[in-house]
């Protein structure tokens, strides 16, 4: 297998955007190509979760390629629900690792804020098992079930979960690309509107528009993709034996570390999928970054803050940077590359090994990507 490197990255500001989805993706893609010093990649991979419903366009690989003047570049689209961006990075990675391509542009994006929130929730919710949906299950509902089980079985506290949101908002305040740049207090989180008991509004990520892109290359650069792992689980939450950890994350992490040839102790910082605050705590333990039962304590102790021992979500995470679905898995890697190459002004970390973790659906299709500076 050939080494795969990252030649350039780019992303749009995340938030409420008025441009076309194609425009947002072009902005991110052209920034990444510019940073890579490349006009035409050998191939392209596009990630969008549901442009058919969100913006009314289909055949989206060709739509994006044609829009940004790359209509003759072989382009395919990848979809694994909310982790589509990370899946697209894998689809590009294997083309280079196999020696089939020398450069691949990976771009992901989503545009949703022009639709009413209940409509967006319903469309995202279609990634849930149909029977569970027929009982009114939505992403927040299933996350609420998981969170209550965490509290009852693992002794996790609402305060620990609220601290995840407080920390990630504080990080987002330092990120010019973030959806939310205002800090929140523990009391504000704990007193925000109840969404799915015990989850409150400020435990949940927002609905965001945006795009992110990166160029993968066979030529040596400053950042190497050290490992990518893919893990899956049953679509139905009721078919799982464990509610308080995600098999899909555990399997993805094991595969990524096996490919990289090192373990979680080498990771200096990480971008984790905090769609709901409790998910960051679950991921810390599932990936093995923190011993079982310790994620809440170390978060309250500040160990996962920017100045802590193991900074988590320096970008602000899904909570504050925002969650434009198929852009997210790529945006996480963009943040890691910025951090590893000294371009994260205002929130710059040290370290050589970064980890990105993306959840598809209700943890049915997850990815862990490891990046190492050369």
């Amino acid at each position, binding site marked *: 297998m050939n080494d795969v490197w990252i030649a350039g990255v780019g992303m749009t500001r995340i938030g409420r955007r008025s441009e076309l989805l194609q425009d947002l993706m072009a902005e991110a893609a052209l920034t990444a190509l510019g940073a890579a010093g490349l006009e035409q990649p050998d191939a392209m991979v596009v990630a969008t979760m549901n442009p058919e419903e969100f913006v009314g366009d289909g055949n989206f690989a060709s739509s994006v390629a044609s829009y940004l003047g790359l209509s003759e570049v072989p382009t395919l689209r990848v979809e694994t629900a909310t982790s589509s961006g990370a899946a697209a990075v894998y689809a590009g990675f294997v083309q280079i690792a196999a020696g089939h391509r020398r450069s691949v542009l990976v771009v992901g994006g989503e545009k949703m804020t022009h639709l009413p929130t209940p409509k967006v929730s319903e469309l995202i919710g279609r990634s849930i098992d149909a029977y569970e949906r027929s009982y009114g299950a939505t992403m*927040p509902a299933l996350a609420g079930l998981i969170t209550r089980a965490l509290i009852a079985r693992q002794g996790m506290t609402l305060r620990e979960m609220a601290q995840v949101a407080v920390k990630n908002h504080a990080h987002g305040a330092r990120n010019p690309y973030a959806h939310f740049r205002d800090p929140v207090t523990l009391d504000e989180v704990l007193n925000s509107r109840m969404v799915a008991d015990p989850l409150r509004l400020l435990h949940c990520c927002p609905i965001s528009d945006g795009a992110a892109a990166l160029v993968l290359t066979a030529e040596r650069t400053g950042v190497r993709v050290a490992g990518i792992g893919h893990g899956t689980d049953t679509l139905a939450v009721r078919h799982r034996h464990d509610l308080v950890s995600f098999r899909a994350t555990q399997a993805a992490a094991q595969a990524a570390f096996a490919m990289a040839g090192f373990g979680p102790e080498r990771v200096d910082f990480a971008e984790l999928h905090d769609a709901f605050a409790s998910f960051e705590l679950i991921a810390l333990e599932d990936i093995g970054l923190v011993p079982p039962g310790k994620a809440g304590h170390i978060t309250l102790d500040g160990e996962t803050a920017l100045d802590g021992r193991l900074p988590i979500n320096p970008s602000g995470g899904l909570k504050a940077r925002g969650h434009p679905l198929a852009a997210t898995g790529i945006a996480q890697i963009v943040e890691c590359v910025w951090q590893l190459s000294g371009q994260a002004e205002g929130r710059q970390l040290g370290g050589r090994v970064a980890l990105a973790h993306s959840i598809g659906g209700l943890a049915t299709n997850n990815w862990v990507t490891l990046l190492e500076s050369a």
Partner: protein
Amino acid sequence: MIETIAASRCPRCDEIVAPPATYCPRHPVRMVPARLPGVGEVVSFTTLHSPPEGFKSPLNLALVELEGGARFFCHGSQTRGLKVGATVAIEAIDDVYYFSHLGALDRARLFWRRAGRAGDRVNAMTRSVVKRMWKGTSSG
């Protein structure tokens, strides 16, 4: 009375799911029909304050592990006093399944039914059932 709920079992791994599925979630094998008693332990529950279209707010949802192993999704009229680990009964109203806290009489029936099946567990169950009955319905 305790209802039974339609389920299916994997002939390969004995996994049981409810409602029945065509294929086992973990093996590409056709499942065979099974039935489970409509009683089980609350794995978790939530109250959704902005439910999707077609549902009234607040919407109570629970995941219940039925005796026999399958985890089951259902609605509930209320969650006050409900705890993770509590025993609840499940019943269908117009093809929609609801959980409800077990009354003392239901628990006694359940106890004798279980005792008949697994005599060696009688002592442990006596303690557990008596404890639950003593705490009354609020502890579910």
